[in-house]
């Protein structure tokens, strides 16, 4: 097993850092470019949420990412110790946002781009988003097995 943890200031410019770092690790597995792109979108959404919702853009706070590579799987956890989510079911609804200026699609992207997905959160304590994805999508495999 290969594992890595990243901790960084909750600044918007670090979303790009998190994307690249995760992609660099994910590229140890057999992902395609579009797989990587999707994983990067999922990570961007989760990290952006931690920064803007969890920490209200306070750059003094720290976002944590834990990444594990086990066999064909990459597992990613995005952790903040920010304000937390009161109603997770509601937060997960497509187009739901507590900010009227936002689209409310972040969690939908994460769920559609990653295979396994879960959120745990407690108000005042923080939020932990866990997602994983297997390298070698069924589609690709079927073709290569012909």
């Amino acid at each position, binding site marked *: 097993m290969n594992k890595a943890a990243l901790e960084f200031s909750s600044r918007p410019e670090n979303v*790009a*850092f998190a*994307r*690249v770092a995760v*992609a*660099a690790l994910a*590229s*140890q597995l*057999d*992902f*395609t*470019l*579009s*797989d*990587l*792109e999707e994983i990067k979108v999922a990570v961007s959404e989760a990290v952006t949420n931690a920064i803007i919702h969890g920490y209200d853009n306070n750059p003094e706070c720290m976002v944590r990412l834990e990444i594990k590579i086990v066999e064909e799987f990459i597992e990613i956890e995005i952790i903040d110790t920010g304000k937390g989510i009161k109603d997770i079911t509601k937060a997960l609804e497509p187009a739901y946002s507590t900010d009227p200026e936002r689209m409310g699609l972040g969690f939908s992207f994460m769920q559609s781009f990653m295979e396994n997905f879960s959120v745990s959160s407690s108000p005042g304590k923080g939020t932990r988003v866990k997602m994983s994805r297997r*390298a070698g999508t069924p*589609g*690709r495999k079927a*073709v*290569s097995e012909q």
Partner: protein
Amino acid sequence: VGEIRRFLRDDNLIKVSRSIKETAYKVQQTRDVLVAKMGREPTVNEIAVELGIPNEEVVTALDASISPASIYETLHQ
């Protein structure tokens, strides 16, 4: 110490990526060629092998987080 630097440059041990954009373009091009050849999406590693560059370069080439200075350098070299 200055000599080590020169040695590295002269011996091309450090291959300064001429242009990240150029690599990004080649990566996309190679992807298309491999899709046509293999009938499926190539993996990052397959593209890297085809281009003779490390996986990490494929990954960095695809990301737009390049500093203004490096873009300047890319455009003016």
